[in-house]
């Protein structure tokens, strides 16, 4: 029993220890709330602000889900195109890498200049953050498919597109999901960055408002919600993988 759950209990125990030390430090050194709130104050803020956080959180989650959906579609299309036409891969892949070197905090205001203060730039920020890990994982997954599988279905009379449908795309799904797990974790942060720069709703907007009011307990409460939502997004992909790809269950463990 201890062995089975020990792996999960250990980080929880450490986290609990850090929270106790944090609480003791704030109380012991009389640190004011506008400098560092204690975990209990953060928890209180979380409970008091639950309704407001839920409203703003729903907006952020909607932006993140839309962004990740668009990223997934674009990554699958681009991955297949790059795999089909090697010159496209040689041309596009380095550009994809370069796009990741541009800081998103610089890109987000530019997107607002072009697209206004609506939901568009927030979704695009998520897309810019999530597209890369999904596209690269899927593209690498396609490139690594054993050619013998493709030869087998071709010997059965399958054409190029059928070989993609029957072999290459299904074989690359585990790689795609690996990228998607990373992207899902980024997606909430991406939406928050977009909202931080300019919005009327969302956790980024809420975060900016409470920060400007020096309500650090609410800032920390909002950060806790962002962490929770990011882990939920990652968990959703893991759950999908567990349910939809049973043949990977052994490997997951």
């Amino acid at each position: 029993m201890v062995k089975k759950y020990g792996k999960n209990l250990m980080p929880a125990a450490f986290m609990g220890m850090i929270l106790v030390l944090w609480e003791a430090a704030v109380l012991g050194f009389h640190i004011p709330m506008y400098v560092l709130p204690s975990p209990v104050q953060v928890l209180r803020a979380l409970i008091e602000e639950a309704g407001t956080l839920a409203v703003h959180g729903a907006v952020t989650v909607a932006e993140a889900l839309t962004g990740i959906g668009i990223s997934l579609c674009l990554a699958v299309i681009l991955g297949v195109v790059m795999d089909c036409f090697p010159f496209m891969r040689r041309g596009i892949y380095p550009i994809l890498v370069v796009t990741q070197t541009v800081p998103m905090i610089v890109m987000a205001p530019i997107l607002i200049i072009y697209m206004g203060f609506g939901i568009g730039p927030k979704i695009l920020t998520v897309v810019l953050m999530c597209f890369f890990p999904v596209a690269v994982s899927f593209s690498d997954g396609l490139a690594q498919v054993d050619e013998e599988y493709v030869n087998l279905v071709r010997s059965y009379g399958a054409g190029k597109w059928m070989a993609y449908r029957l072999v290459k795309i299904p074989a690359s799904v585990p790689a795609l999901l690996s990228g998607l797990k990373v992207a899902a974790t980024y997606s909430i942060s991406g939406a928050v960055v977009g909202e931080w720069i300019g919005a009327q709703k969302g956790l980024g907007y809420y975060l900016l408002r409470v920060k400007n009011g020096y309500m650090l307990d609410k800032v920390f409460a909002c950060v806790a919600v962002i962490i929770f939502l990011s882990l939920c997004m990652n968990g959703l992909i893991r759950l999908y993988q567990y349910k939809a790809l049973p043949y990977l269950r052994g490997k997951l463990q």
Partner: protein
Amino acid sequence: MKLRVNGLEFSYENKKILDQMDFFVKEGEFVSLLGPSGSGKSTILKILTGVLMPQQGQIMADDRQIYGVTELFAYMPQNDLLFPWKTILENVCLYGYVHGSLEEVRREAKENFSLFGLAGYEDRYPSELSGGMRQRAAFLRTALCRADILLLDEPFGALDVITRGEMQDWLIHMRKRLNKTVILVTHDMDEAIYLSDRILILNESPARITGEIVIEEKQRDRQWLYGQGELRKEIHRRIMGES
């Protein structure tokens, strides 16, 4: 369906793999292509399936020249190549997926699961099966193709000695049931002697057929195989190029 291969030549990256390959296979015959590893035996099968195109030569099926991928051949590769993401039933129905006849192939597959020793494993994934069972599933996938000629590329090469022996016995039994023409590629002399009606001997790359051995015995068992010392010596002599 009878098959004739005339003057087949194939090179890859300026290296000649096949050189003037000529052979024929009669209808219903079990022919083995026996030669050392890396001699280009598998290349012959890949050309027959249409996955590779020869630089020269002709392939005639019933006196009709064939090109590229045709429905005449069903190919069983060296590794089972079962799709890990599909169940065994879905795997063996590959022909149905490709040709839009899934229901028909699925029905036929279900009827054959017991015969292939796979009953009860229809909904399992390949990773849950033993090596021998995976090979039998791969063989069922091959047998379910509407093809006249089965091309077996060292199908038991990856199995341990005991399982390989069991699979060879099983293949002899299955051959009578399926009644198809078979071309087997192998580097295992005993396997070729045990299973074949005729053995075509290949030399080192570039591959060329250097000899032919006809095996008359119809009632074969392991005891018969152990007594074939002279035949083994003869095949060895031919592989080494001694007349």
